[in-house]
C-alpha cells in the first residue's frame, strides 16, 4: 500500500522533474533563438559596413562634382555673396513710381448702389468694370511687403485671389481698408521697413 506521505513526495518529484525538463527545453529554445538572432545581427552589421563603404564611395567629392556639373551646375559661393549680418543685405531697388491711387470715395459711390456687383459670386470670370482700379490698392494693403515691389496696376485680375478681392469692394469693410494710406516712400533700412509694416496693420 502506498501511504499518503509517499504519494505526496512522488507527486512533488514528478512535478519538479517535469518542471525541470520544461525549463531546460525552454532554455534550449531560447539559446537557439539567441544564436540565430546574434547571427542575424552579425549579418546585418556586415551589410551595414558594406553599405557604409558604398555610401562613402558614392559620395566621393569628385563624383559629386561631376554630378553637379551634369544636373545642377552649382558653383562655389563667391566671397561677395557672403554676408555676415542682416544689415549688410542691400534693399531691393526702388520701384517705378506708382500711378496715383483713385479717390476711394468715387469707387464707393460707383460700386455701392449696384446690387449686381455685390451678388456676383467669387471666382466669376468677368469682374465688374468698376472694380479694377481698386484692386492694386487692395493687394498692397493685404501684403505690405509688396508695397515696395514693382506692382503695376493690372486692368484684369487674373488669379482667383485677386478676382475675389475685385468682386468684394461693395462690402463696407473693403471700403474701410481701401481708404487707408499705403506707405509710399521706400524704407531705407530693415528696421524702418518693419516699422512701416506694423504701422500699416
Amino acid at each position, binding site marked *: 500500500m502506498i501511504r499518503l506521505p509517499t504519494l505526496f513526495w512522488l507527486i512533488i518529484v514528478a512535478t519538479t522533474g517535469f518542471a525541470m525538463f520544461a525549463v531546460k527545453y525552454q532554455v534550449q529554445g531560447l539559446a537557439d533563438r539567441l544564436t540565430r538572432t546574434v547571427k542575424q545581427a552579425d549579418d546585418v552589421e556586415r551589410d551595414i559596413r558594406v553599405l557604409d*563603404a558604398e555610401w562613402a564611395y558614392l559620395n566621393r567629392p569628385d563624383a559629386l562634382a561631376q554630378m553637379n556639373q551634369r544636373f545642377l551646375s552649382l558653383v562655389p559661393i563667391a566671397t561677395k555673396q557672403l554676408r555676415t549680418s542682416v544689415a549688410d543685405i542691400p534693399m531691393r531697388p526702388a520701384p517705378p513710381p506708382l500711378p496715383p491711387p483713385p479717390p476711394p470715395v468715387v469707387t464707393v459711390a460707383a460700386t455701392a448702389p449696384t446690387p449686381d456687383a455685390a451678388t456676383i459670386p467669387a471666382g466669376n470670370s468677368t469682374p465688374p468694370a468698376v472694380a479694377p482700379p481698386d484692386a492694386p490698392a487692395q493687394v498692397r494693403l493685404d501684403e505690405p511687403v509688396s508695397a515696395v515691389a514693382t506692382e503695376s496696376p493690372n486692368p484684369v485680375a487674373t488669379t482667383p485671389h485677386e478676382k475675389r478681392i475685385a468682386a468684394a469692394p461693395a462690402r463696407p469693410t473693403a471700403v474701410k481698408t481701401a481708404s487707408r494710406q499705403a506707405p509710399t516712400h521706400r524704407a531705407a533700412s530693415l528696421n524702418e521697413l518693419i516699422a512701416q509694416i506694423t504701422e500699416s496693420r
Partner: protein
Amino acid sequence: MSAAFQFDDNPCRPRHFKPPPCMPVVPDGPAKRALDGCRPRLLIMSLAFIIAFVVIAGRLIQVTLLPGSITVPRIARFDPVPPPPPGRADIVDRNGKLLATTLESPSLYANPRQIIDAADVAQKLVATLPGLNRNEVYAKLTSGKGFVWIKRHLTPDQAYAVNQLGLPGLQFQHEERRVYPYGALLSHVVGFTGIDDNGEAGIERGLDSSLRGRQESVQLSIDLRLQYILHEELARVVDDFTARGGAGLIMNVNTGEILAMVSLPDFDPSHPDTLDPRHPEWTVAERMFNRVTLGDYEIGSVFKIFTTAMGLDSGATSMTGRFDATYPIHIGRFTISDYHGKHRWETVPEILMYSSNIGEAKIALAVGADRQQEYLRRFGLMSAPTLELKEIGRPHYPAKWREVNVMTIGFGHGISETPLQIASAGSALVNGGILRPATLLKLPPGGAPQGTRVISAETSDHMRKLLRMVVLYGTGEMVDAPGYVVGGKTGTADKVEGKHYAERKLLSSFLGVFPMTAPKYLVLVMVDEPHPNKSSHGYATAGWTAAPAVGRTIVRIAPLLGVQPVDESSPSIVQALTPESMQGKRIEAY
C-alpha cells in the same frame, strides 16, 4: 531475541509496555565500551553535517532573500557563438566620413581531389572570373594537392556567379579586405595595407599596432572637404605649370591639427603598385613619396620669416631697423644678390616685403651663428618632426656653421626642411608664439597641447603685420583672396642638383595664413619644378604659381571653416595690420 527476552523477564512490566524489537541491545562488557567510544564520533559527525547544512541554508537565504548581496551575475554569461575576431579599426575623418574600412570578402579556393572534370571547371571559371588564365587554372586543378587558391578577394557579384556554377570541389574562404572609398584623395595620409593587413604606408603603418584588434574607429584631424579642395587646387597648379609634383598642407595654427595634406603625384591605395595610365612617367616610388613629411627641401625665401622673427625677438634688430641692400655681398666664391632688388637701404618690413636676400643675410649676421642655431632649434627646425606617420624626413644643415652658412640660411638656402616643419614653425610665428607639435589625430575641443613658447607674443604680433604687408605690397600680391585678410610669404628656390644649384629647376612655395587679424589657419603650397606658361608671362616663381593656388584654396575653404569675410579696407583692420613705422606713408610696391 535473547536480549528482548531478558527485558521481558520482569514480571511487573505492563503488557503494553513492550520494548520495540529493534531496541538497542546494551550489553555489558567490551561491546558496551566500544559503543560508548562511538558516541563522541557520532556527535562530531552530526555536528559537522549540521554546520554544513546551516552554511548551505545561510547561503540560500543570502542568495534568494538578500538580492543586494549577490556577487555572481544574475544570469550567467552565455556566448552561443564566439564574437567575430577583432578586425582592423576603421579610419574616419574629423566629421566622421569613412576613409578606410574592413570588409569581408570571399576568396575562392579549390580542393583538386574533389574536382571531377578539371578541364570543364577551368573553362567555366575562366568564363566567370576575369583575369584568370585557363592553363594556369587547369594546372592548379590537376596538381593533386588538397588546397589551391584560385582567386583571392572576389566581389560579392563574382562570388554569387561562382556559386551559381554549382561545381563541387570549389570553396570560399572568408577573408578581410581593406577598402579605401576615396581612392587617391587621401593616399599619403591614410596609406594602405598589404594583403595580410599589415599597414605599409601612412596612418595604416604609423598606427598599425593600435589599429589592429580595435573596435572603435580612429578619427583623424583631416577634413575630407578641405582635402578635396586642396587636392584639386594643387593638381591644377601642377598641371598648369607642368610641374614634377607638389605638396600642400592646411593646418590649424592654434592646435597643430592637420586639416588637409596632399602630396602629388599620388597613388591609389587599392592598387599602390600600378602605374597611373594618365601619367605613365611617374614611377611607383615617386608616387609613394610623401613630399609633405618625408621630402626635405631648401625652401628658399619662405625661410626669411624665421630669420626676421629671430632678429626681432632676440633684439638684434627692430621693426624700424634698417639694412643696406644696395650692393650684392661677396663672400668667398659666393655672391648674394637680390632677385628684384631695390638697391637701397631697406627697413626690416621692406626686406621681408621685397624678399631681399642681402637684407636677410645681414639680419642673420646681426643675430649671430649661435643665436640663429638656438632659435632654429626652438622652432623645431633642427630635428625631425613628430607625427603619427612613419614617413618622416629630417632636416639637413651644415655640420660646421660658418659665416657664409649663417647668411645663406638667413634666406633659406643651405638648410633643407620638410614642408611639415615649415608649417608647424610658421604657425608658431603667428599664433602668439607657441609651438605645438603637428598631429593627424582630431583633438577634443580645448584639447590643444600646451606647447612651448618660442617667441614673445609681441614678436608674433609684428610677424602678423609683416606677413600682411608681404601680401598687400610685396611678393605675395597674387594671392587674391579678398575679404579673408591673408598674410604670407613666397619662396622661390633653385633646386640643388648634386653639389650645385640647378638654374632652371625651381621650387616655388607659398605659406599663407588667414585671417591675419586673429590667425586661425595656415595653407602651405609647394610646387616642384614648375615650368612657366603663357598665363604667367614666362614666370614660374612662387608669386605666380603657389600664391594664386593658396588664394584660390582659401577662398573655397574659408566658408567651410566658418571664417567670415570682412572689409579689408576698413580703417581698423588696416591700422591693426600696418607696422607703426609705415602707417600713413606711401608704400612702394614690389
